[in-house]
């Protein structure tokens, strides 16, 4: 049995996902740029 009765309490996680995707993309991009800068 899944505890679905309280699933509404965790609905906020679905709103956080787009933010996490954007932040992850920025971090990844920043690291890649720094690496490229070091290689140059």
């Amino acid at each position, binding site marked *: 049995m899944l505890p679905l009765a309280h699933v509404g309490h965790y609905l906020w996680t679905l709103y956080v996902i*787009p*933010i996490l995707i954007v932040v992850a993309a*920025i971090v990844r991009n920043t690291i890649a740029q720094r690496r490229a800068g070091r290689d140059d």
Partner: protein
Amino acid sequence: MTLPVAHALASRQDLPIPAWLFAWAASIVLIVSFFALSAAWRKPQLEDEHRRPLGERFSAALLSLPAQVLCGAIGVFLLGVAVYAGLRGTEAPDRNFALTFIFVTCWLGFPFFSAIFGDLFRPFNPWRAVGRAAGGAFTAAAGQRPAHLAYPERLGRWPAAVGLFAFVWIEVVYGRTSIVSVDIEPHAVAVAALVYSVYTLAMMAVFGVEKWCERGEAFSVYFGMFGRLGIFGAREGRIYRRRPFSAATSWATVPGSAAVVIASIAATSFDGAQDGAFKDAIEKVFIWFGDRGLALTTALRLTDTIFMLATFAAVGAIYLLGVRGMRTVPGAPSFKQLRTGFAHTLIPIALAYLVAHYFSFFVFQEQAQFGYLLSDPLGTGHTDLFGTVANEVDYKLLSANAIWYVQVAALVIGHVIGLMLAHDRALVYWPDYRKATASQYWMLAVMVAFTCFGLYLLSVANG
């Protein structure tokens, strides 16, 4: 008047996709807008207002002394009616002119319309009108203009930020009488208005009318901030048309401006979350204080104050995180410069939050304002000044889904404009558009965060 549930008068039904998916779609719109801006917008466009003066006669008529006196007199008269209604009228909040007039018609109406037409509050500002009249009378009697102290520039707009916070505190914290409703008493609002009037006139006497309106008078600063988005302005005796949003770029140069706009976003967020997203947490802290012997009302106000301050801190932290991210880009100005330089980009977000949270409330309550409240301002049931006392609010005017779509559209458009302003300012600091774009990655994250946060608050509040 139960303010926090005002935007939740009906539950949504039959949305084509789940509410959270709107947050994903809004985020995609922002990301696409971000890349479109970086590809097509390579020079600052908004630093210059591109003023185009309107007809000389039109300007002269609108800015003439009789017109200024008339507008000021209207402002003073309406403030007087609101205070009188608060002191002498019914204690039923929804039947007293004072509450709807102050908290809805003025508090929401001026931002909504100023954002389109420019600062509309300035000519109707009752305290400015009284201050100018008193200054004029002094000059006539003494034969010289009144002398004022120099305003401490370090204070900037901080007094306005504190005043704004205090106003919202009275509205959503002080007026909260139980865990489920806000029922502020009209009498308390009238007394607060009188206290604020005395304080404002005293400050105007000390620092000068115009200086205090620019820096410390909370309503002038707050409504004027939204007016910077609008297309009309006045300068040197002429009314002019300007490029939309361009006047906002010079707004935040004064210290404390960021605090004003952050306080605005935080206040709206807290009001929306008080009976929605924060409800469980507020209840827990409230019970904790109650268990330690605090009186119920004190415990409730203390809890709400803590959450309101926490919201202010959280909104400020998200913005500062974006600013901190910009510092990592080569050639970045100082943190302080960036913090001030990008504060105006939050103005459209503050407006978007206001529209999203209160649009339906405004539409419904204005029917009351121009219906039974106008005819029976004291709410005694004995007067019918304009024959509209029987008019009721039509809650079917807007469907729940229509409200939701307006809310989503307001948030998305507001954040896209925020991105646009930030991109334009970045091009000033980093003339190389590639660096400017790189500097805005973190602001994109800030905008996505505010959009998703706003939609989450609305989805919980709307049920």
